[in-house]
């Protein structure tokens, strides 16, 4: 650090309390650096905090401009955290079986006072799809996928797909008419997968003598639904993917994505 400027705080009861608090043993055991009133300590704030150290210490000015970033990547991440939290709470109330799924959602609506967790989860999910799209759009329009950031763009595209799959699997869980028919329409596409769907082109060519290898009970759609229609198997499969499989996958990719932002030279800017 070339220059170390110290910002002298104004004296007052608030400041005195703040000064006392930040010198207690508890405080100093949690935060290993002094008050962020000098450049040196501002560096330490970021470097010695496991959450903040995702950031660099300094970044280009356009990187903090809403004009440049639209904040869409950050909001996508924040919405993911909101969805993880609200989803966790919803899991306490919800059982993924034909018997209970719908009634649990009704119960959630009727019996939980001031309950807005399902609403926050659903609208947050819609919002996340939109923020992820707009993030991708911004990254494209600023040419930020160009070298050296090619790989991170590709990771982002995979995360975009995972976001849509997360939303898609969650769509089934309320087990109402809206849910099963949307998933029926969506998953019917898998039936037409070339070679792997039983109504897909080329599937009839895969046969041993008279025995077809690809039929309704072993094709791509069956693998997706765990059955030949959207039923108990599909509900469980989508629940597990929605709550465990896909979030884990996207969390790992998020780590890669953020790490690569740093390693590829921080937020993009003119060379």
């Amino acid at each position, binding site marked *: 650090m070339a220059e170390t400027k110290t910002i002298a705080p104004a004296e007052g009861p608030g400041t005195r309390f703040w000064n006392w608090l930040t010198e207690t043993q508890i405080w100093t055991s949690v935060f290993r650096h002094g008050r*962020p009133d000098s450049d040196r300590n*501002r560096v330490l704030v970021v470097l010695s905090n496991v959450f903040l150290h995702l*950031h660099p210490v*300094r970044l*280009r*000015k*356009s990187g*903090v401009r809403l004009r440049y970033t639209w904040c869409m990547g950050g909001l996508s991440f*924040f*919405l993911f955290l*909101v969805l993880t939290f609200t989803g966790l709470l919803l899991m306490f109330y919800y059982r993924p079986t034909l018997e209970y799924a*719908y009634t649990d959602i*009704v119960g959630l*609506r009727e019996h939980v006072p001031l309950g*807005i967790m*399902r*609403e*926050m989860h659903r*609208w947050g999910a*819609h*919002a996340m*799809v*939109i923020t992820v799209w*707009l993030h991708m*759009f911004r990254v*494209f*329009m*600023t*040419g*930020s*996928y*160009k*070298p050296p950031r*090619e790989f991170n*763009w*590709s990771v982002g*595209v995979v995360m975009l797909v995972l976001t*849509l799959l997360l939303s*898609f699997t969650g769509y089934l869980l309320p*087990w*109402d*008419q*809206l849910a099963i*028919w*949307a998933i*029926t329409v969506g998953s*019917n*596409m*898998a*039936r*037409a*997968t*070339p070679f792997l*769907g039983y109504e897909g*082109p*080329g599937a009839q060519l895969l046969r041993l003598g008279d025995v077809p290898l690809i039929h309704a009970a072993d094709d791509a759609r069956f693998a997706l639904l765990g059955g030949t229609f*959207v039923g108990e198997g599909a509900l469980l499969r989508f629940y597990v993917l929605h709550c465990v499989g896909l979030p884990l996958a996207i969390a790992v990719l998020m780590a890669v994505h953020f790490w690569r932002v740093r390693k590829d030279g921080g937020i993009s*800017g*003119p*060379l």
Partner: protein
Amino acid sequence: MVLIKGFVNTLADPRLFFLLACVGLAVLIWKREQLASSAVGYGTLGFLGIFFVFGTFDPNFRLIVTKPDNVPIVGLIFLLAFFVWYSLREGVLNDRRIAAGQGPIEKAESDRVWVWPDLVYIELIALVLCSVLLIVWSIFLKAPLEQPANPANTPNPSKAPWYFLGLQEMLVYFDPWLAGVVLPGLIIAGLIAIPYIDRNPKGNGYYTFNERKPEIVLFLFGFAVLWSSLIVLGTFLRGPNWNFFGPFEYWDIHKLAALTNVNLSEYFWIRMLKTGYPSAWAVRELPGIVLVLLYVFALPVLLGKSVFKGYYEKLGPSRYYVTAFLFLAMMSLPLKMLARWILNLKYVVAIPEIFFNI
């Protein structure tokens, strides 16, 4: 009032709707210098807002727009219109600076600021605002819950989740194996391929239009027109039996749409040669198969030697052919649309015997 509604209903017809989206994008790009002013951008948003407020007085419009799961798409319309305009405006502003020899604004802003406090405070504010918005939205709009799932009772229309409605709209023009599997796969592959086939070193890390004209035009066409406008179309303008309904039109389940679509093989064998179909499907579909093969294999070569010669030389053969293939795959949708609208063409290749229809 009736006149305006009738006019809007007419404009919303899929053919006109799609053409208008294309024309709108073309005008926005062509006249970007004039349209870059704030008055135009915010004026358009205001006009859109007035249209929606005006629209909600109509029961049919209100029914479809206030359906809880459709509310985010109303938001998406505004956000998308705004950000498409905004990103182009930033490009125009930077292009002016570059033309004046100043370099993009991001270059002038490339000195460093502290993460604490400059960034973390912005993050905190964004986080608080986003939470407030989400909580208010959640309090005022209940999440939808319909009748319990009943596999015996198919709703009409049956719609996929809204973000897949562009793909569902493609089902009008392509069979599921293309619209639901191959083309989505190509969208993903194409997006991943973008950084590897775009060799233009300019425009890295700042908004610009002039330095990246073809890339931006193509991306906007794919994202704003093909992907997003078809989602809006599929959400608001498709009713029972996936028939078209204007935004102010009642969703009449008995509405009949003329379906007189004809396969290419019929055009060829029956209307042109005035003979019957040959019995073997390979012969029957030969004209269509040849056409598709030409489109996929010959056209990239021809284009590379004529219109896209410059790109061929710049990209080299492998990058050029991947780009051309992805480009033609993307253009297959608007081309098939046009063929449907003008020639009533159903399938170019129709081999229902092996579920192979294009």
